[in-house]
């Protein structure tokens, strides 16, 4: 399986409820002392594109090997796409929507 570079969307109660309504709560994982996370996969090309589109973001290569520090509004947008499309494979569509 190709390596992925996930975007971690941290799950609070509000986000968890939305996932439950969409039947997607099973996609979350417990990552930090019980804190739930939705790991949205990106491939190398998508990762580089996202880091270019959002220069404040950082790829944490040392600890979690994930894309971190994306603004909340950006993660909200990705999260909403996941819920409405009922899949976590939304990154191409997300990038297209930003590039518009």
């Amino acid at each position, binding site marked *: 399986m190709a390596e992925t570079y996930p975007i*971690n969307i941290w*799950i609070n109660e509000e986000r968890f409820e939305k996932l439950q309504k969409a039947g997607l709560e099973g996609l979350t994982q417990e990552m*930090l*002392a019980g804190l739930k996370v939705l790991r949205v996969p990106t491939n190398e090309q998508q990762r580089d594109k996202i880091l270019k589109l959002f220069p404040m973001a*950082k790829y944490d290569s040392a*600890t*979690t090997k994930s894309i*971190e*520090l*994306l603004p909340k509004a950006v993660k909200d947008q990705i999260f909403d796409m996941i819920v409405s499309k009922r899949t976590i494979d939304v990154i191409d569509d997300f990038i297209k929507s930003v590039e518009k």
Partner: protein
Amino acid sequence: MEMIGHGGKEIVERVMPKDAAIKRLKELRAAKVKELDVRLQIATEVIDIAYGFFSPLEGFMTKADVEAVCNNMTLADGETVWSIPIVFDISEEELQKTGIKQYDEVLLTYQGNPLAIFDVTDIFTYDKKEMAMKVYGTTEDKHPGVKRTYQYKDKFLGGKITLLNPPKINPPFTEFWLTPRQMRERFKEKGWVRIVNHQTRNVPHTGHEWLCKGAWLQTYGELTIEKPIVGVLVNAIIGEKRVGDYIDEAIILTHDMLRKAGYFGEHNHMTTCTLWDMRYAGPKEAIFHAALRTNLGCTHHMFGRDHAGVGTYYGPYDAHHLLESVKHKLRITPTYSMNWLYCPHCGEITNEGICDHKKEWQKFSGTVVRSIIIDGVKPPRLIYRPEVFDVIMETAEKYGFGSAFVTEEYLKRRTPVFTIEPLE
């Protein structure tokens, strides 16, 4: 009270008493000495030099010092270990406009108010690319220290500094800014015989907290335990900020909250700050931190993986190796730290050198915790103390214009850490 600092020399304080300073200022102005208004970085380093944070330096480096720092990692005496050039840059245009010459006495001002006397003994040039390569190990300008070096103007002035006008440290930093002499007096009052420094520019998560607790235990070593005689000094570096960093107020107040909330206590924990723009020089910055904290009166210093590094310029243990190579010349003992992490099997924060549930480890970094907070999610108390989280939220409202992270608005509108007021 004997106050021996880095290099085995008495802490240098070059601060003129107020009455003498007012008199001297009048004399200087009557004699129409040359005046030069300096930017924030230089004003900060003037203050650091004057109060002995950079002992045994008494002023900005001469060419001989810069050459020795770059080539041998010492001062010009060939003995005192020093790793980062402390330089006063000036443009040819400014030199011509002010007419500053070697052996001039120059009145430095900051935002128009008198700051210090600068006895210029050397005017020189230095190849900035060479300086970058020798200090940072790279000439790439995406390295923030290299970028800063390239931004220096083309000439440098060397010579001693005498502070005329002490800074007014603005709240909430007032109680946290202590001079090296004041810090040593405070340690004495507390009865601490060993002090281990924690270098930070972060809000503490429990990994940081346990790093300090582990280092406290390491530092205690063979000492007797009838009364508390070892302390952790959290010395926050307060300086140039970049958008996305934690705001300075959050850093200092959250560390202090760890003591106030009882995770540490008065008997073993103290938070202070030092004014300094990080150079991200990795191993070289580690050596600089060792000198700085020796001057503050610390006996030990924590160094974790990739101390003061940036990107992938330095290996995780490069700083440790460099420290080991000059350890015999330092007056501070490095305490090396492994990573702290959460183990769900143990149900606690533990250390990669202790726990063997490797497959279950949940590692976290400052970046990950920042990411959680940016998402508006409250991290679990095992990762982030609730009192620390509350302080972050309070400081965001009170000082950060609604954000715990530096924004353009914060950079424009924040209250400066210090001001220089008129001297009268």
